[in-house]
């Protein structure tokens, strides 16, 4: 079987499993009937680079045989006790990670009227990507458009622009635009020139100025542009819309973590967006709520739409009062200016 068809199979059956066992434990079972098998996991060790997996028997339902596709295209049968669930496994090839998910066009809608700076999105993002507290791929700003206008909370992640200034300037194709709309970074390609950071008008990108701390869980894990872990010193990283989750049909952690359903994530081609609680028509939503894109005049064509903070569910102070001092300092200027102008 040639490599191309393996990749296709990997897309068809890509539960994030890894296998830790010796090759002689595998019973070969012919390769022809593999398409009929529903529960096919992949032995990804060779197909997607090395893996960190130990022989654990957490999900041991020993005796149950599972059919797997080996890197050579052989269909093998192994005991399910050897299967390890792995959250951040690189499940697609490097080429696939650059091309994106066929037929998709990811889009996000952020409802500003619901945000109260609960910051659950921020911590969920950091947890999922194993980023330290000071690294915020997703950040919440307190915006005030003009002196008299009311401040509002403004969650901001990468806008995954359709005309991305960052991608234009990359000298080595380390940051790229995929067919599903995502702008990703390959931190094994990145030379760390930081030109993309200077070019991004939204200050979305962060740089690993020092050697990042890699938690044990993802220690030695093979990198993929889709998972974004582990981080590497001297390279750029940013919000990636969690393509490893969207491949599985899951929502990004920020969307799931938000207690107020601020974020709607979905597919423009399917015309659906969901915040986890409700699934809406994307076009209807942006039409009804007069959605806008941030700084449209820059011509970057963001893939993130904002619903204006009209009829707000929370007063803006709700997001400020209970913050720790360190975070309060960030917004002090705007908050004080606001109370001042009210007087």
């Amino acid at each position: 079987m040639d490599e191309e068809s393996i990749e296709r199979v990997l897309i068809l059956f890509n539960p994030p499993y890894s296998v830790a066992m010796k090759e002689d434990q595998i019973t070969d079972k012919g390769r022809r009937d593999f398409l009929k098998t529903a529960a096919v996991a992949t032995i990804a060790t060779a197909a997607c680079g090395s893996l960190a997996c130990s022989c654990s028997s957490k999900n041991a339902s020993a005796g149950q045989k599972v059919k797997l596709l080996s890197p050579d295209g052989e269909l093998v049968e192994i005991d399910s006790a050897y299967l390890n669930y792995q959250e951040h496994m690189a499940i697609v090839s490097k080429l696939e990670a650059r091309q994106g998910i066929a037929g998709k066009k990811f889009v996000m809608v952020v409802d500003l009227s619901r945000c109260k700076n609960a910051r659950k999105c921020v911590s969920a993002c950091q947890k999922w990507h194993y980023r330290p507290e000071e690294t915020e791929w997703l950040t919440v700003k307190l915006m005030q458009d003009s002196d008299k206008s009311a401040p509002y909370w403004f969650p901001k992640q990468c806008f995954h622009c359709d005309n991305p200034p960052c991608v234009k300037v990359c000298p080595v194709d380390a940051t790229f635009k995929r067919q599903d709309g995502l702008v990703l970074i390959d931190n094994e390609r990145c030379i760390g020139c930081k030109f993309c950071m200077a070019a991004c008008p939204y200050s979305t990108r962060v740089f690993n100025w020092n050697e990042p701390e890699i938690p044990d869980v993802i220690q030695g894990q093979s990198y993929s542009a889709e998972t974004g872990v582990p981080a590497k010193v001297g390279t750029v990283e940013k919000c990636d819309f969690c393509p490893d989750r969207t491949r599985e049909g899951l929502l990004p952690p920020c969307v799931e973590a938000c207690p107020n359903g601020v974020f709607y994530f979905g597919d423009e081609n399917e015309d659906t967006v969901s915040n986890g609680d409700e699934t809406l028509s994307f076009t209807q939503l942006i039409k009804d709520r007069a959605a806008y894109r941030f700084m449209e005049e820059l011509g970057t064509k963001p893939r993130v739409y904002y619903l204006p903070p009209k009829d707000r569910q929370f007063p803006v102070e709700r997001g400020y009062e209970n913050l720790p001092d360190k975070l309060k300092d960030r917004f002090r200027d705007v908050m004080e200016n606001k109370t001042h102008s009210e007087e």
Partner: protein
Amino acid sequence: MELNKYQQELFEKQRPVIEKFGKRTWGWSIFFLLWILLGGYALYLQISKGHGITGMRDNVVWGLYIANFIFFIGISYAGAVISGILHILKVEWRKPIIRIAEMITVIATIIGPVYILLCVGRLDRLHHLILYPRLQSPITWDVLAISTYFTGSVIFLYLALIKDFAIYRDAKLNIPKWKQKMYKILAIGYRGTPSQKRHIRISTNLMAIMIIPLAIIVHSVLSWIFGMTLRPGWHSTIFGPYFVLAAIYSGTGVLIMSMWVYRRMYKLNSHLTDKHFIYLGYIMMVLGAAYGYFTFSEYLTDWFSSQKWDSEVIEKIFNPAKYGWWFLFSNVAGIIIPVLIVALPATRKPNFIALASFFMVLALWVKRYLIIVPTLESPLLPMQDTRMEYVKYSATWVEWALTFAGIATFFLFFTLASKFVTIIPISEFGDKEKQVVPGPVADKEKELATV
């Protein structure tokens, strides 16, 4: 190689410079080496500990290094444009200064790109620039332009050196064997036959013509690293010509300073005359006025139309509590003083002109800093960051050490080069009547003379 009387005299004067490596030279070289060693240590720390030990952070992603990069590539214009243009125009008084000018070019073009490498987080992946090049990126343009420009500058310098190498080879200098051998190799068998002379003349003319557009491309492309972004203060259509002009301007300044130093150090008053300072001073004055015009129109448009983002940068640059004093200095020392010093006959003296050049070159370095840092400190979204080092850039000792190491490298290379070749080219000076090179321009001159 037969030397005429004038050449002989010139050679005898410079002979001790290339024959001996005196105590004073040793002293200076060691002094420069110490700075370079300190820079080397800083570089070691930066590579081993990461860029976290520099003052650069997520907002101000570039700092001193990029300012140095623009600065060094800028001063390299001394040779490319000044020497190139004067060569094409067949200006006779250029002859004693072309060697200095072209050496500045080559040395500065070696040092400049090192600073861009210092900004690169993963030096181990530099080969990616060749493995996965993207032509859309202004950095790729830069790599192509600078490497071409460097090659061209080296050839231009070397072409003017071949005849001199032949002179050194045949002069029975009291020098070590390896040096003698080097001269022999580098002279590539030049004997001064008519065909050899012709080849060198044609190649030099070609290179002089080629080096000018190349130089213009290099600094334009460099300015586009900034101009192509959507950042206030950078996104400007005049950035290309503005940078090119500033580069020629600062190159002239460095050329005047080097002339002044060499004249004093090696007592070359009879060759590097007051006339040279005054003529180059005139060039500097014209460039200074043009540079002032560009500066004025750039900041006037930003300030007058006062778009939100532009105003934010302008506010930082004009505000005395922020960069205001530096901006004032960059304009007073960078435009007003040099223009006035040359314009007023009372101050149109080598010493004053050299001093004005010094401050002008310094002011232009400050200007480069002011182009980079205030813009990066003004992102379009509010920073709302409590980490001071992320909000405001201040260079660390590592960056300063490497900056001074670069300057020391420049001086060291210059010192070493002046021990290897004569600072004033000897072969350029033919007999009086032979000085007029035959060719279309010279013929015309003859015609004019007969009329």
